[in-house]
C-alpha cells in the first residue's frame, strides 16, 4: 500500500459514505423492511396475481426485446458514425444522446402524438394494420427510444480503437467483407455489445415516464410494472408497493448478473480466438 502523503482521506471517505448512506442506503433499507411486512404468503399471492405477472412480463420481456433491437440498430449507427465520413456526421453524432437529455415525460407525449392514429407516423402505420399508440408495441417503441444511446456510446470508443490490421489480414487471406465482419469483427465486439445490451436493458426495465403516455395502460395488456407500484401506493398499499419494488430490483439485478456472466464468457472466448 502506498504511504498516504495526500490529506483528506477521513473527510472525503467519511462524507461520501455518510451521504450515500443517507440518500441511497437508508431509503433502500426502508424498502426492504416494508416489503418484508407483506409476509411470504402475501408475496406469493402478489407475485402470482395475473395482473402482476402480466405487468412484469411486459416490463421485463419488452425491455429484453428492446435492448436486443438496440444492439442491432446501435451497431449499425455506431459503425456508420465511426467508420464513414459524410456531411452532417457530427450533428447526427450529437443527436444520439437526445434520449438521455430529453426529459422522459416530454419524450412520452411526443412519441404518443407521433404514433397516434392521426400522428405523423401513426397515419402511415394505421392503414398497414400496425397500431403503436396505446398497445404493447408502443411500450416497446418507448423502451427502444430511452435505451438507444447506450449501445452506440459503449461501442464507439471500442470501434475506433479496433486494429484495422486484423481486418486487413483476414481480407488478404481471401475473406469476403461480410465474412470479415461476422467472423472477425463481431466476435471482438461481443463483450462491448453485451455491456451496451445490459445498460439499455437496465434502463428499459424500470422506465416509467416515456412509457406511460404511449402505453394506454390497459390492465393485463399494456400495463408496466412501475405503474402497478404507483397504483398500489395510491391505494395506500405500502407493503404491496414495496414488495413489487423489491421484486423489480431483484429481477433487474438478476438480469445484470446474467449479462455480466455472459460477458466474462465472451471476453474469454474473444481472447482465446484472437
Amino acid at each position: 500500500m502506498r504511504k498516504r502523503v495526500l490529506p483528506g482521506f477521513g473527510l472525503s471517505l467519511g462524507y461520501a459514505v455518510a451521504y450515500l448512506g443517507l440518500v441511497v442506503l437508508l431509503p433502500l433499507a426502508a424498502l426492504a423492511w416494508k416489503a418484508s411486512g407483506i409476509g411470504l404468503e402475501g408475496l406469493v399471492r402478489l407475485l402470482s396475481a395475473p395482473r402482476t405477472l402480466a405487468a412484469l412480463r411486459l416490463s421485463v420481456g419488452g425491455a429484453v426485446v428492446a435492448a436486443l433491437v438496440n444492439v442491432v440498430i446501435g451497431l449499425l449507427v455506431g459503425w456508420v458514425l465511426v467508420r464513414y465520413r459524410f456531411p452532417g456526421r457530427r450533428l447526427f453524432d450529437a443527436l444520439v444522446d437526445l434520449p438521455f437529455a430529453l426529459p422522459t415525460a416530454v419524450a412520452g407525449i411526443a412519441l404518443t402524438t407521433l404514433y397516434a392514429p392521426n400522428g405523423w407516423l401513426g397515419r402511415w402505420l394505421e392503414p398497414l394494420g400496425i397500431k403503436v399508440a396505446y398497445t404493447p408495441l408502443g411500450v416497446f417503441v418507448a423502451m427502444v427510444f430511452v435505451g438507444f444511446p447506450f449501445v452506440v456510446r459503449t461501442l464507439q470508443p471500442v470501434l475506433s480503437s479496433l486494429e484495422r490490421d486484423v481486418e486487413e489480414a483476414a481480407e488478404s487471406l481471401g475473406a469476403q467483407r461480410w465474412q470479415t465482419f461476422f467472423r472477425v469483427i463481431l466476435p471482438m465486439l461481443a463483450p462491448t455489445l453485451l455491456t451496451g445490451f445490459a445498460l439499455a436493458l437496465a434502463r428499459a426495465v424500470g422506465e416509467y415516464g416515456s412509457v406511460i403516455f404511449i402505453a394506454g395502460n390497459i390492465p393485463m395488456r399494456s400495463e408496466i410494472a412501475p405503474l402497478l407500484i404507483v397504483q398500489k401506493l395510491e391505494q395506500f398499499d405500502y407493503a404491496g408497493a414495496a414488495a413489487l419494488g423489491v421484486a423489480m430490483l431483484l429481477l433487474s439485478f438478476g438480469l445484470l448478473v446474467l449479462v455480466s456472466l455472459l460477458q466474462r464468457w465472451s471476453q474469454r472466448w474473444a481472447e482465446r480466438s484472437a
Partner: protein
Amino acid sequence: MSAPLRSRPVAWPRRVVHAVLILLALVFLTLFLLLPLATVFVEALRQGLGPYLEAIKEPEALSAIRLTLLVAVIAVPMNLVFGIAAAWAMTRFEFRGKALLGAFIDLPFSVSPVVSGLVYVLLFGARGWFGPWLDSHGIKIIFAVPGLVLATMFVTLPFVARELIPLMQAQGSEEEEAARVLGASGWQLFFRVTLPNIRWALLYGVLLCNARAMGEFGAVSVVSGHIRGLTTTMPLEVEMRYNEYEYVGAFAVASLLALLALVTLAVKTLLEWRYGDEIAAHAPGGH
C-alpha cells in the same frame, strides 16, 4: 494506396454498401430521434405564437419553472460535493470495500425511477418509518418540496462521481503529491492543483446531472402529490396538462424542457470537441 491486386471479384462495390448503410442509419436517426423532437415544437406552436406564450405565462407554469429551478439548485450542488469527495477518496487512497463503494455509487442508475420515489415515501410518508415523528413536529417531506429534492438527489447521485472517478484515476496524483511536498495545505492543493485539472470533467458531470435533475419525472411524480402551483415541477406540469387535454399548454412547457435538452447537448458536444482529452475516459453513455 496499395496496388489494385484484388484477384477476387467484388460483387457489391463497397461504395454502394457504404451509402446504403449510411442511408439506413440516417433514416433511423431522423424518424426515431429528430421527429419526436420536432413534434414537441410543432405541437406547442400549433395555434401560433400568442397561445404558446400565453400557456407559458400562466401562473401554474411559472411556479413549475421556479420549483424546477429550486430543486436543481439544491440537488445538483449536493451531488457535486458528493462526487468530488467520493472521487477523491476512491482515486487517491487505497482502502477495503472500495469496489463495493463504487457499486453503491452506481446503484441509483439501476433502480426504477418509481422505486427511487417510493423509498422516500416509505421513509417519510404518513405511514413511513419517520412519518409519525415528522407529523407530530409539523414537518412535511412527502407531498412537499423536501421530498422532491430528496428524490431528485437519489436519481442524479452518480453523475458527477462517475465522470470524475475515471479521469482522476487516469491523471494520477503526482502533481498533488509534489504540491504537498512543497508545503501546500490540503485546500490549497485542492483548489490550485486538483480543481484546475478536473474542471471540464466537473462541468460535464454537472451538465448531465442538471439535465436529469430538471427533467426527472418518475421519482418526483411519486413524492409530489401533484399539488398544482406548490409541488408540480415542469415535467409534472406537462403530465397534468396533457392528461387534461390541454395539448398546446402541455407541449409549451415541454418545449422549454426540450430547449434545455438541446442546450445541454450543444454544450456537451462543445466540451467533448474542445476538451475531449481533459474529460477523457468518461463512462460510456453517462446516462
